[in-house]
Structures are given as C-alpha cells and as structure tokens.
C-alpha cells in the first residue's frame, strides 16, 4: 500500500465495467485511497450496455495501478454485476462501493446505467457514485 492505514481508512470495493467514467472512478479512487490509506479491491465486470471485454478492462486497470504505483486486488465477477457487487460488499465486509456512472448524452442529459441504479438502491453499504 502507498500509505499507512489510519482511523479513516476503509475497505473499498470499486466496480469497473469499461466505461470512460469507470476508469475516471478508478483514478479518483486510487487518489483517495492513497491519501486515506484505503484498502482497494477492483471488481472487473462485463458491462453488457458497453460491449466491453473483461481481459481488456483488467489490463487497463493493471496499467493504471502500475503507473500510480498503487497496489490493489483485482478480481473478476460473473453474473449480474449489480447484484454481485452488493453481495460481495456485504459478505466480505467492505465499507463502501464505488462506481462510475451517469454518462451524458451529446445533448447533455445524464443517464444512470442499470448497474449503478441497482447498486444505489440495494447496497447495504454507502455508495460513492463518480460522475
């Protein structure tokens, strides 16, 4: 880890599904984790709305972590990403779920994806939405 754990440190579960906002969420989560001494787990999933590929996402996540010189666990989740994120956070004692969502159309309207919606409505932990 880049910094010592302290009273504010959290176990953070970050979902990355390959959207631009999910990579932005990765950058911001690394920054905060370094400051606060958070323990970060990155959960990679295939976002059907994005037509992304788990391997490519993992590679980009790894490169980002390497560049930031920050260590985090990476794992893949299968099945419905929203419900799996909620399950993992609950059963493994994470303090917070972080997700990037809320892309803007060209016209400027913010649209929340179905995965983010599910997590916001069903998580037992606090959720940080990066948008």
């Amino acid at each position, binding site marked *: 880890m880049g910094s010592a754990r302290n009273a504010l440190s959290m176990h953070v579960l970050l979902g990355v599904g390959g959207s631009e906002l999910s990579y932005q969420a990765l950058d911001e989560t690394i920054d905060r984790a370094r400051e606060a001494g958070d323990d970060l787990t990155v959960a990679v999933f295939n976002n059907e*709305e994005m037509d992304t590929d788990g391997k490519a996402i993992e590679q980009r996540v790894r490169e980002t972590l390497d560049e930031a010189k920050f260590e985090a666990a990476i794992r893949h989740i299968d099945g419905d990403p929203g419900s799996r994120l909620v399950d993992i956070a609950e059963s493994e004692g994470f303090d917070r779920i972080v997700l990037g969502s809320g892309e803007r*159309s*060209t016209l*400027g*309207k*913010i649209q929340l994806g179905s995965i983010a919606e599910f997590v916001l409505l069903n998580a037992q932990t606090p959720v940080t939405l990066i948008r």
Partner: protein
Amino acid sequence: MIRHYPDEPAGPFPAPPRQQSDREERSIQFRRADVTDRTALIEMYTQFDPADRAQGIPPARETAIERWLETILDDDCFNVVASHDGDLVGHATLVPDEQDGYELAIFVLSAYQGAGIGTELVETLLGLGQSEGIDRVWLTVERWNDPAIALYRKVGFETANSERFELEMSIRLA
C-alpha cells in the same frame, strides 16, 4: 447499444414558423432558432426554475449554460423556440446521436407551463425534423415526470426502454 423505434411513422407534424394561441389566450410564435438566438436563449435559461431541471440540464451557472448552448446550437442540430411578446418562453432541440437518430429535449419557462406550449413546441420541432429528412427521434425522461410522459405519448412517442433509471421513448417520422 441498439435503440428501438416504433415500426410505423407518426405525424405528419407542422413545420415552423407558426403562430398559436395557448390555453391562456396568449399569442405564441414558434420559429426555427440558430446560433443568432444565443443571447436570448442564455437570458431564458438564466431565468429557468431550478426545480424544472431534468437530468442535469439546463446547467445552473451561466458559463455552463453558454457551453451547453454551443453544443446544441451547432450546425448539425435543429432548434425551435417559442416566444411571447418578443421574449423566448420555450425551446426544443434535436441533437444527432452516433446512429443516425436524434435526441430530443424541450424546456418551457414555468410561467408558461400547462398551457399547451410544450406540445406545440415538440410537434413543431418534429415537423422541422420531417422537413429535414430526419426519421428517428428518441428522448429520455425521469420516470416520475407524468406530465412530460403524457405529452410525449400524446404526440406519438412510444416507450422504448423502461428498464433504466430514466424512461426512454422513441418515435419514427418517416
């Protein structure tokens, strides 16, 4: 992402310019707008009731409004405004997506809502779209926004996707 559209075209819709009396007997002009209306639109949007914002637009701060208008007043977009006594009271826009469709949005100042202006604005914009050869239009609307959903349905929009936070509706023009 694949967007769904109704099989049958709706319309025909009336093209601008038009003049109509609203339900409060106000004479409302509907006409095509472009980048020369920028200043008047900024003025309208700075008066916009924050409670009437939807999904992040119109933006709140004037600099953000200016940036947003730059996008939607671009040459590849189509815009119609409603005016009363020379002041803009409503605006509707069509912005191209990446799949030959157009996204629609509409805004009416609160003092002019509930008088039928929104319906006329949408119909006039779709009329402009038809005359410009646009055949597919979609929009998203917050699921709890019953007046807006009723308006879009009346005009001919159908539900395209109801599985997301926002309801997606679409219409075929040709």
